[in-house]
């Protein structure tokens, strides 16, 4: 018997997803099938024959591969350092690796310029060097640093699960510590490495802010799409570039998805034993420590320089403290701050709650098209932010859904971009809950809906808090999608920072960044509070599951 509720709710979600995910996506793809005002593959022909565009695609892919490789390696080193050696600086490294969560990519780019740019604090003032900071090298460096949080969490989650008994078995059979690491521990971590690599590749391809700010003459598909649309309003080329970009991202995501499914059977038995320490030789330990210390120093340096840039002004020979950069806030910035907080709050509430509802529908309620819903909700993971942004800009600038220029379009776009995250966390929360508890509730007379609100939701609350705050932080950092949707009436901090940086107004950009980071740090503080109830282990596991997007 299919009640209205059973049918109605999924149907509603299908409709919403179709309108706000599928429709914009199709709009972009359709737009790309246009050349100089007429239908045809002309644009694609141009993309794949003109050497400039071929070079663009190649450059994007190469940088993505490079960043993926470097950030995965870095994440691995840091994971081993923090979890497999007993060295005292673990807490420092752990702190440093969490920083990119609250410092958005475009802010680290800003710091980077402040320190190493033409007028950079270190390169110019201290060392009197002059080098070309705006190049693909800087993109590679910054992306590697920025993605390290993700790779670290993904790899750590798997690394910690390697049973120390298995490592002991290897020792018993004659393996020395290094051999234990290379023949037993690392092979078992491989799924984590592959996941980290694929996701970093995806993020790099989709990355807009960093390449745009520090890329210089190096362009990626994402940045060129922006230039074509905003600069010359060449919707066809912008759409085509975005579609090609999306194809790469989809491939990477599909590989990741497939691999996750396969690794279920490979699951290492997580039992008593936990993460065992490796007693590595001095040389190896030194290398790990060096990497850890260098990383921490760089990240802290970048963090500090944001504050330096925000609170100082360069006059003549030295730096002087000033509030000047913050003065702009009462004039222009209040709006953005309020908008950022409101939009992020709305987004996190909606995505967390409805993510759980959809997860509940998909896993507990049988209805036709369940798998399709699962797919549609997860799809925005793979769609680059710029693609969605262009899609929304093109799809909703005409009736019946004339949303462009409103705050609604900003919120809706962010909601649907974050929804996969809410769904994923809801799914993982439900998987951990005992079915028998829900069955007991129904056996005692409660309806499915009642069970959801009275049993499932309260039990899931601690974990939901974690994912809600994570969604909140991620919303504040969104740039690529919103860059096409912002109008003077509904600005947000991320775009303000971006525009100020591009203008060269480092001081103002830094001031806004400080405000943004405080908003984000407030969120992290809330996770810590909520997490006190659930305990470190589950908090950690959940964080690793959320490392997408």
């Amino acid at each position, binding site marked *: 018997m299919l009640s209205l509720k059973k049918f109605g709710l999924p149907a509603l979600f299908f409709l919403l997803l179709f309108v706000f995910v599928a429709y914009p996506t199709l709009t972009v793809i359709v737009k790309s099938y246009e050349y100089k005002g007429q239908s045809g593959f002309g644009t694609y022909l141009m993309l794949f024959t003109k050497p400039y565009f071929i070079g663009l695609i190649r450059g994007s892919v190469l940088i993505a591969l490079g960043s993926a490789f470097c950030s995965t390696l870095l994440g691995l080193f840091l994971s081993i350092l923090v979890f497999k050696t007993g060295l005292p600086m673990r807490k420092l490294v752990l702190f440093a690796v969490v920083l990119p969560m609250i410092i958005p990519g475009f802010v680290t780019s800003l710091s980077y310029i402040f320190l190493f740019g033409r007028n950079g604090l270190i390169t110019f003032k201290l060392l009197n060097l002059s080098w070309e900071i705006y190049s693909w090298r800087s993109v590679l460096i910054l992306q590697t640093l920025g993605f390290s949080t993700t790779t670290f969490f993904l790899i750590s989650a798997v690394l910690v699960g390697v*049973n120390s*008994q*298995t490592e*002991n*078995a*290897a020792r*018993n059979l*004659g*393996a020395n510590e290094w051999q234990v690491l290379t023949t037993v521990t690392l*092979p078992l971590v491989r799924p984590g490495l592959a996941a980290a690599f694929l996701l970093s590749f995806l993020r790099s391809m989709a990355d807009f802010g960093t390449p745009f700010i520090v890329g210089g003459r190096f362009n990626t598909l994402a940045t060129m799409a922006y230039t074509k649309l905003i600069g010359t309003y060449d919707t066809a080329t912008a759409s085509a570039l975005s579609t090609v970009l999306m194809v790469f991202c989809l491939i990477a995501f599909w590989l990741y998805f497939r691999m996750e499914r396969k690794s279920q059977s490979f699951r290492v038995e997580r039992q008593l034993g936990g993460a065992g320490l490796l007693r590595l030789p001095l040389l190896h330990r030194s290398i790990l420590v060096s990497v850890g210390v260098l990383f921490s120093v760089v990240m802290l340096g970048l963090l500090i320089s944001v504050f330096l840039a925000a609170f100082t002004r360069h006059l003549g020979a030295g730096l002087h403290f000033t509030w000047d950069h913050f003065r702009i806030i009462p004039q222009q910035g209040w709006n953005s701050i309020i908008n950022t907080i409101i939009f992020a709050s709305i987004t996190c509430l909606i995505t967390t709650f409805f993510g759980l509802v959809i997860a509940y529908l998909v896993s507990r309620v049988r209805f036709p098209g369940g798998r399709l819903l699962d797919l549609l909700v997860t799809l925005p993971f793979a769609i680059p932010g710029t693609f969605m942004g262009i899609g929304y800009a093109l799809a909703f600038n005409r009736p019946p859904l004339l949303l462009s220029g409103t705050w609604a379009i900003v919120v809706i776009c962010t909601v649907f971009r974050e929804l996969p995250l809410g769904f994923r966390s809801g799914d993982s929360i439900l998987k951990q809950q005992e079915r028998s508890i829900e069955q007991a509730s129904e056996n005692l007379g409660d309806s499915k809906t009642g069970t959801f609100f009275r049993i499932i939701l309260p039990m899931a609350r601690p974990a939901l808090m974690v994912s809600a705050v994570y969604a909140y932080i991620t919303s504040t950092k969104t740039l690529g999608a919103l860059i096409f949707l912002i109008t003077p009436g509904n600005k947000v901090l991320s775009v303000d920072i971006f525009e100020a940086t591009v203008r060269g107004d480092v001081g103002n950009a830094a001031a806004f960044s400080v405000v943004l980071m405080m908003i984000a740090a407030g969120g992290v503080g809330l996770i810590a509070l909520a997490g006190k109830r659930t305990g470190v282990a589950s908090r950690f596991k959940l964080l690793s599951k959320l490392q997408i997007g």
Partner: protein
Amino acid sequence: MKLELKGITKKFSGKTVLKKFSISMEKAELCCLLGPSGCGKSTALKIIAGFLKQDEGEVCLNRQEISLLTPQERNVGLVFQNYALFPHLNVFDNVAYGLKRRKWRKKQILQQVEEMLDLVQLDGFERRYIHELSGGQQQRVALARSLVTSPDLLLLDEPLSNLDARLRMQMRNEIVRIQRKLGLTTIYVTHDQEEAMSIADRVVVMNNGMIEQIGSPRDIYKEPSSPFVAGFIGRINLLKIDPERDRISVLPGIPGQNRHSARGEKATCIIRPEAVELSSDPNSSLHGIIKEITFLGSVVHYHLEIPDWDQDLLAEVPALKAGYRLGQKLGIGFIPEGVRFFEQ
């Protein structure tokens, strides 16, 4: 290979887990460490294997102190409770692992591994992965892996606790068969007394880090050195004898107890259920009424309520001879061999 543990003591955060633990093992002997959870048996194994360092005492293999050797350097075969097989390697590579670490040549490895798999009856399984195997098969891979390097000593830490009852019986016979064939000195840790009794040459009964008794299964059962050992192996009726209360001081048919009651001493009395004889004899000096009957297949358990006693008596009777009914009043006698007295 002769193994000797001399006065091993180990403490964990203030709690003494092993107290002056000493045993000496003969070559090709299968010795069981038997005891309840937390008695220190697994700790003793880990010390022998080198994963824990003892606070006091020596570990000697063939008269050589091995305490300073790392786990890698000791040639000791170890089968873990959860097998600890390598999930990313197939059966062949799992078994070959120890040989690769010893840098054997490929051909030799192939030969040796095949021999081992044959021994544990897993030939043909080389390419399978661990998750494709049943519990019993995984157990055998773990065993093969530990034996392939021809260790001086084999240690097994509750290897069968993850298997169901039937499989457990099969596998323990397998282990004994292999152990005898290879003549390997073996220490087997278990909390299952039936398991220990059925396979051990010698049993070491442990409690709270100390050895309660060492002996053959027969000796441990028939002549337990303390109420704990008696109670741990098989079932018992435990009686407190207190001459001052003059209640249970007289057990019909048992000569030994008179010593204690004559001296007016308190004692603990152990009576094996199979040593309780029931009859319809009205002239018996001790009577009881059947309160509960449990049919166990080959034997029947009768719980008897005895006037003046403050506890019930458990009697075990072969099923073919048991025909009593609930509420029936029966005469009770005892077989002396199944009764023992311990001073308090």
